[in-house]
């Protein structure tokens, strides 16, 4: 008999627009000491399953069928007060965001001890002793002292360790981890996953790990269940699912994962996603179309298109009258690099490394404290004349990270994309503007029926396409992509990356591509710069960097990438293989 048995689970959400079946007849089982991965993209219903098992399904969600059994005992029908006994005591939960899953007003000690007193009936002294042991076991040094501290005194990774300790403190039989490492940096992610796997095996706890990340799945799970729109499409051992998947959805999902070990020419077309509204896009002859005209290039130049020299930017975190009292952050320190025409240059680094600041300095959104940005042999950072500055602004455009805040919610798509054209008066009349906006939307795969709609009617991937269309509307030469896909699901990421590759090829764009994700960088970039704490540590050709890193930090980053060699390579086209 399995430890946890979910049978024909059916969950529905009712609202005024009707009924939505979030989970449709899903059956899963979990054994002692086993790690089961539940993988799927947003909207697949992964978190809903976790919440249903632990009894935290919120209104208007409702379980309308099926059963959940723990050790043979049916738990989904238990009355509230009995369920509370199960939750926490027999099933532990680890949430995504360690910043919000601890009570900021209580010490770690009181949070741990309270839980143990409630569920285990330990005395104060016993509980404290156990708390120290627990913190030790999740790898927190100086446990006795750290116990007295408040959550804000711990870093993100440390906090997630505390959350794990909290989930473990009553020796639960099952742990549900909902995206436990998504909010953490890569280096910390690897440690946390190691810890989870070790604890699971040692204490013979069954664990369900809910994630969208194939890397996490590959790293720690024994078995995988693949969810697609509330349905279980495939289940099996991790090696089987990743190595030779049967279901077409699993295949396309795996083929969309950016590889760290090989460079693909293009992601194979990801079927199964209905993100593209107009898949048959018209072929443009770029040379004759508006998009290809007056792009201010052609003359083959010897000098790089963009040179960044000795760039520095400091933020005053706390201002004060006296200089010595000011708190200053050097976000960018003496950074110099150059990008050739037609090249894709990557910047990689963990959060806070200054990647986005550099992007905004180049785009002219921030003013640099020192150094200069030289674009097309002109020092843009010292330009004062508004008209000449606008000419440069037109040539440098940007695609942002968050597709939900990068479009004005009160404007129609037509006006959003047409705004740069109208502002710079790039067309002869309004009719032409509309025609070109329609073409642009076609070009990014949206179709002109999108024109009259508002941003909220589109999904994240579609919004990102709109952002790309807007960026192209000034006919730029240079495109800055600031983590353009980090907010997207992997299959949609694959589509957007494909789109960017196509655009780069056809329009001969020069791209600065910023990401924290090394596999994505490997797929996209010709050359890469590695950033840490605002300093550029190393610049190298992508292939050289991945096969032969020079700087220790680069080596460290590379060693943290999840290994993906056992992922199926079905249908992949390798670059110059």
């Amino acid at each position, binding site marked *: 008999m399995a430890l946890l048995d979910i049978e024909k689970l059916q969950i529905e959400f009712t609202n*005024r627009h009707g009924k939505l079946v979030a989970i449709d007849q899903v059956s899963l089982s979990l054994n002692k000491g086993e790690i089961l991965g539940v993988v799927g993209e947003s909207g697949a219903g992964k978190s809903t399953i976790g919440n249903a098992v632990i009894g935290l399904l919120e209104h208007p969600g409702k379980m309308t069928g099926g059963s959940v059994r723990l050790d043979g005992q049916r738990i989904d029908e238990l009355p509230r007060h009995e369920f509370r006994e199960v939750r926490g005591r027999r099933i532990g939960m680890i949430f995504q965001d360690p910043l919000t899953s601890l009570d900021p007003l209580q010490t770690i000690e009181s949070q741990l001890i309270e839980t143990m007193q409630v569920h285990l009936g330990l005395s104060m002294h016993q509980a404290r002793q156990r708390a120290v042991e627990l913190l030790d076991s999740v790898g927190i040094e100086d446990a006795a002292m750290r116990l007295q501290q408040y959550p804000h005194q711990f870093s993100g990774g440390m906090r997630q360790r505390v959350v794990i300790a909290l989930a473990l403190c009553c020796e639960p039989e099952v742990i549900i981890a909902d995206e436990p490492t998504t909010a953490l940096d890569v280096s910390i992610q690897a440690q946390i996953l190691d810890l989870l796997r070790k604890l699971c095996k040692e204490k013979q706890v069954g664990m369900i790990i809910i994630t969208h990340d194939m890397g996490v799945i590959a790293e720690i799970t024994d078995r995988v269940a693949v969810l697609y729109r509330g349905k279980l499409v495939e289940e099996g051992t991790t090696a089987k699912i990743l190595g030779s998947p049967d279901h077409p959805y699993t295949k396309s999902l795996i083929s969309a994962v950016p590889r760290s070990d090989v460079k693909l020419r293009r992601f194979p077309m990801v079927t199964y996603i209905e993100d593209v509204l107009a898949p048959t896009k018209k072929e443009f002859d770029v040379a004759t179309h508006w998009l290809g005209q007056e792009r201010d290039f052609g003359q083959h130049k010897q000098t790089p298109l963009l040179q960044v020299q000795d760039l520095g930017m400091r933020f005053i975190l706390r201002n004060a009258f006296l200089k010595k009292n000011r708190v200053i952050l050097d976000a960018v320190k003496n950074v110099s690099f150059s990008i050739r025409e037609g090249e894709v240059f990557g910047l990689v680094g963990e959060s806070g490394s200054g990647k986005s600041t550099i992007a*905004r300095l180049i*785009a*002219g*959104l921030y003013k640099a404290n020192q150094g200069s940005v030289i674009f097309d042999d002109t020092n843009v950072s010292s330009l004062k004349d*508004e008209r000449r*500055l*606008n000419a440069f*602004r*037109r040539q*440098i*455009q*940007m695609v*942002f*990270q*968050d597709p939900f*805040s*990068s*479009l*004005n*919610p*009160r*404007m129609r798509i037509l006006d959003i994309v047409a*705004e*740069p054209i109208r*502002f*710079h008066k790039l067309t002869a009349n309004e009719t032409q503007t509309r025609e070109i906006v329609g073409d642009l939307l076609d070009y990014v795969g949206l179709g002109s*029926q999108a*024109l*009259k*709609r508002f941003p909220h009617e589109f999904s994240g991937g579609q919004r990102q396409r709109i*952002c790309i269309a*807007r960026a192209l509307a*000034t006919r730029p030469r240079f495109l800055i992509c600031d983590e353009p896909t980090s907010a997207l699901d992997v299959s949609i990421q694959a589509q957007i990356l494909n789109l960017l590759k196509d655009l780069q090829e056809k329009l001969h764009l020069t791209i600065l591509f910023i990401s924290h994700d090394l596999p994505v960088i490997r797929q996209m970039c010709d050359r890469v710069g590695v950033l840490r704490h605002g300093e550029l540590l190393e610049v190298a050709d992508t292939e050289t960097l991945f096969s032969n890193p020079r700087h220790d930090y680069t080596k460290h980053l590379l060693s943290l990438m999840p290994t993906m060699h056992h992922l199926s390579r079905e249908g992949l086209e390798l670059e110059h293989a």
Partner: protein
Amino acid sequence: MATSTFSRIRDSDLYYSFTHSPAAMISALVALLIFLGAVFAPLVAPHNPFDLASVDLLNANLPPAWLPDGMREFLLGTDDQGRGILSTVLYGSRLSLLVGFASVIFSLIVGVSLGLISGYAGGRIDSLIMRIADVQLSFPAILIALLIDGVARGLLPRDMQDRMAIYVLVFAIGISGWVQYARTVRGATMVERNKEYVQAARLIGMRPFTVLRRHILPNVLGPVLVIATIHLAVAIITEATLSFLGVGISPTTPSLGTLIRIGSNYLFSGEWWITIFPGIALVLLALSVNLLGDWLRDALNPKLR
């Protein structure tokens, strides 16, 4: 699907929440009735109380029609000059609403502009505007309105005072209320300013003023709408208070406040209707507008949904 404005409204969450809130619908109905009655007062009212030819002193102090001595012609009775109370209330709410709307629009324009500038510019300009707002907030609004009203009366020549009374009142009430708008808009602007669509607009070279007008303004108007609705009720009451204290609109063209003041003199001599009916009208108006504002605040706040 390209949608017309009408069907967008019909499908909106706001419309849904409106049709599912009895309080909102009833108060909207009441407010609408008073509003229409006021706007179309010349058509609806049985008399024109300002037309001296139609006023007969013999009809003074008549009780409402259903009481003994009441005349059917004057449904709610008459005042000391023989004017029908129903007619004066209708004409009076016309003035009250006019002053209310005008002063709300005035504070809205001042407050929203200052809030936008303050939130977008930041730094010294922000500090300056917000300190002025803080100073003003430490006085009660009614005191500021009284002060402005008093100063204006002192400055204006006597013969202009009555003509200018309404403008002075609008200015006084308007100025006393801008701070709320400015603070709300400043906060919302600081949030919107950092969103990426604003950066995208700056990226194509738009000037701050254009960015504010085209991008930020439409996105900060939601909370402003709520404040404006609640402020309308406050402005109507403030006007009534000022008129009641005798510093508002002159008795020859009475607003609800003036009517209540005049009527209160007769309360103890038994002619209660002169003050009670304008009072009821004022309460109904303010209450329904306030309830509408409360509903709007809840409906627009996703956290409460």
